[in-house]
């Protein structure tokens, strides 16, 4: 007999002490992951991702949680056997930054195969969202690889820009805002 999927429910407003305790200053539990995904010894080029989440009214969301899953610098997804210490997974709440940003210190992923451009996979959670949303972050300066990416090619051309992280003012810094609604609404995927 096929079993039915357990329904998703919102992460709610009070996830921080359970899922991101270190970031929010709760000491009873250690964090399994946070925004610092790579250390100085992780092979690869540094990538710092900064962004905010905007609701339908254009307000920044102060209680969202963003999770990142990405390949290492060679394009390989970590499977727990790697000895570089790179787990490929990061988690950051928007509640500790004065501007409600999420910030990830990581490395640039390599191309993961299947003709795909380098990208980071994203899950977005927040109070008000009965189930989470998937999106992807591509790097704006990988124009050639992005042009032939099989997933980007399924996105209407005028919306592809919502999936591109733009280089910021400092080297290695990229900006990626998420808009839930409106003209700049981020493309979400149903994998």
């Amino acid at each position, binding site marked *: 007999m096929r079993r039915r999927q357990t329904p998703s429910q919102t992460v709610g407003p009070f996830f921080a002490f359970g899922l991101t305790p270190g970031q929010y200053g709760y000491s009873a539990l250690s964090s399994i992951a946070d925004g610092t995904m790579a250390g100085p010894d992780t092979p690869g080029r540094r990538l710092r991702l900064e962004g905010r989440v905007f609701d339908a009214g254009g307000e920044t969301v102060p209680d969202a949680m963003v999770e990142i899953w990405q390949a290492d610098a060679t394009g390989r997804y*970590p499977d727990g056997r790697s000895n570089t210490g790179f787990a490929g997974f990061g988690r950051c709440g928007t509640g500790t930054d004065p501007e409600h940003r999420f910030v990830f210190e990581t490395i640039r992923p390599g191309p993961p195969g299947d003709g795909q451009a380098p990208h980071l996979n994203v899950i977005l959670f927040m109070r008000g969202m009965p189930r989470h949303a998937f999106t992807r972050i591509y790097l704006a300066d990988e124009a050639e690889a992005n042009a032939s990416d099989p997933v980007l090619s399924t996105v209407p051309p005028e919306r592809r820009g919502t999936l591109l992280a733009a280089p910021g003012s400092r080297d290695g810094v990229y900006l990626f805002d998420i808009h839930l609604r409106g003209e700049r609404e981020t493309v979400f995927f149903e994998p």
Partner: protein
Amino acid sequence: MSDTSSRDLPGYAPFDPETQPNWVVPDYHSSASRSPGRPAIPLVQTLSELTGPVYGHGAVQPLDHDLTRNGVTDGAPLGERIIVTGQVLDEDGRAQPDTLIEIWQCNSAGRYIHTADRHDAPTDPNFFGGGRCVTDEQGRYRFITIKPAAYPWGNHPNAWRPAHIHFSLFGPAFVTRLVTQSYFPGDPLLAHDPIYMGTPVPFRDLLVMDYDPEVTEEGFALGYRFDIVLRGRRATPLED
């Protein structure tokens, strides 16, 4: 480049529209402004979706699964001690071993340790409310905790959340990620809770734990069973 192609890995079944809530649940008011406006674009699963973070037994500390002990400062937490256990399966009934489960909840007075919780109910210096564990070879997990209480929220006049425990699971791939809540059987608040009611009939029952005398331990704690089903393999072979 990876040495495996996505064709060598199984695809996962989509979110089941019959059991999963929509992004917008009209009676859950904040969902209107906090959900995507346009439909999600279907995505053929690649290695990016078919792999996922690995957090095994090394990720948890010995007391992480026991919320009656992991937040103690000078005594035992107040409230009704309970055991919550179950099995993590996929849609074909296959056990999901080595999957990380994280939980969080309020205390026996209905108050979260979270600094943003303004409910006028006491915190408990001996209860933190967060825990985690990793499933065994049969996909089983087990937590010891304190029964959480109902708490008020601002969704509508005199709104109260039914007692619940928040659950977060990884599963074998990025697409099997699940965040949910488990509720207690017979709670009269369920019928008034737009978050619980936002799940389609008749599948909202899947969110309610069963009281289980077999799990209950004499003289120690009542036992509840909550099995969790993650997205399973696709019924048809993965196409390019």
